[in-house]
């Protein structure tokens, strides 16, 4: 979706403010927001693409006015309500009003380290040969779906070149909407800045994205 999350190329947000390397959290609630998001995710009730979509469907004003862990908490609340683990009334009342829904057991403290170290690989075995090969010219499609996509606006309808073939990966545009992994070939596609931004683009800049096969069509050499 063309939401507030799609920030590439937007202007007017001001300068970037660096910060010292040691600052991991800036408030205690940030720690709890992170931990709550990870532990809730471990219930297996949603996937990472659903999480991202829950966050990007926040009202744009709300999204931009919120710090990132706040976006996470607002997204988490939406997921919990959608999966009927918690009701809106319970969130509003800050108290339990309904019996919990049966789920897989909660993540145990002893399982935290192995679970984080394992992660959730998103690659899948190929079922068909890759359509594009390294060095080939491609054009991204101009798509404007109302649902989740990982093709940013600034890179739509643009001509680039395949630089690597990453393998076959779960397709977020389907997975975010409960349509299963729908795995596809994933490519590293590189664009000169002039293609993305026009004549004024930095002549010594290339930008790459990772693009699923269905985002691409072949382009003339």
């Amino acid at each position: 979706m063309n939401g507030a999350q799609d920030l590439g190329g937007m202007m007017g947000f001001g300068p970037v403010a660096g910060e010292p390397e040691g600052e991991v959290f800036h408030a205690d609630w940030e720690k709890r927001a992170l931990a709550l998001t990870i532990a809730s995710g471990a219930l297996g009730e949603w996937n990472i693409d659903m999480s991202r979509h829950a966050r990007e469907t926040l009202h744009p004003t709300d999204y931009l006015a919120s710090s990132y862990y706040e976006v996470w908490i607002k997204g988490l609340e939406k997921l919990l309500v959608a999966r009927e683990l918690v009701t809106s009334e319970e969130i509003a009342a800050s108290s339990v009003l309904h019996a919990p829904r049966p789920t897989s057991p909660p993540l145990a403290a002893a399982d935290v380290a192995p679970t984080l170290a394992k992660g959730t690989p998103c690659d899948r075995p190929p079922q068909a040969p890759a359509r594009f090969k390294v060095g080939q010219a491609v054009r991204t499609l101009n798509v404007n779906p109302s649902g989740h996509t990982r093709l940013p606006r600034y890179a739509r309808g643009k001509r680039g070149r395949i630089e690597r073939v990453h393998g076959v990966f779960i397709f977020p545009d389907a997975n975010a909407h409960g349509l299963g992994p729908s795995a596809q070939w994933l490519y590293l596609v590189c664009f000169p800045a002039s293609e993305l931004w026009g004549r004024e683009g930095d002549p010594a800049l290339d930008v790459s994205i990772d693009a699923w096969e269905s985002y691409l069509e072949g382009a003339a050499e």
Partner: protein
Amino acid sequence: MGSVPPPIGGDNHAHRHDHDDGGLADIELRVRALESLMIEKGYVDPAALDAIVETYETKIGPRNGARVVARSWADPAFRRWLNEDATAAIGSLGYSGRQGEHMTAVENTADVHNLVVCTLCSCYPWPVLGLPPVWYKSAPYRSRAVIDPRGVLAEFGLRLPASTKIRVWDSTAEIRYLVVPLRPAGTEGWSEERLAALVSRDSMVGAGLATDPASLAGEAAA
């Protein structure tokens, strides 16, 4: 009572109401309430929450990535492995998993400077760099890194010659990118530990360079 949180955009003019209702900002109350609900309903174990926080406060952070970079500088075989299969090479040092399941290492050269961003959310290689800093998640960085990276780098104090080519990696999928900065001159024969001390978090995102040992010597002397 509502409050406007510190925005992603870092707008200095946004109004904040933290602590205007008795010591706790709305977001603190909101997170605390949700945590209580989740614990009371048995969906999360408070000890697991503590373990997660402890992990990212003490175990998983940019010193991991610094060790990867130092090994790559010091060991040509590891460097080849890192370039060919970064996930496995990094895993061999014990760093793996969440938000680093599919790693790619990108080396700076004399001619090309790499910079990593996620314009769509805040994808970041957690096992090697830990949790992302605020700026990496902020609207100013996410919006400008792909259109004006030279301007962004200048704000980090890094002014590259116009002849240095910049390559920006927008992390739009589950591939996570680790920048391997250029090894500074004057570090021949250094141990991996000494080398790792030169590798900042920012340099592994591309927002900086490895520390010049001459500057360290200067500091020590000062």
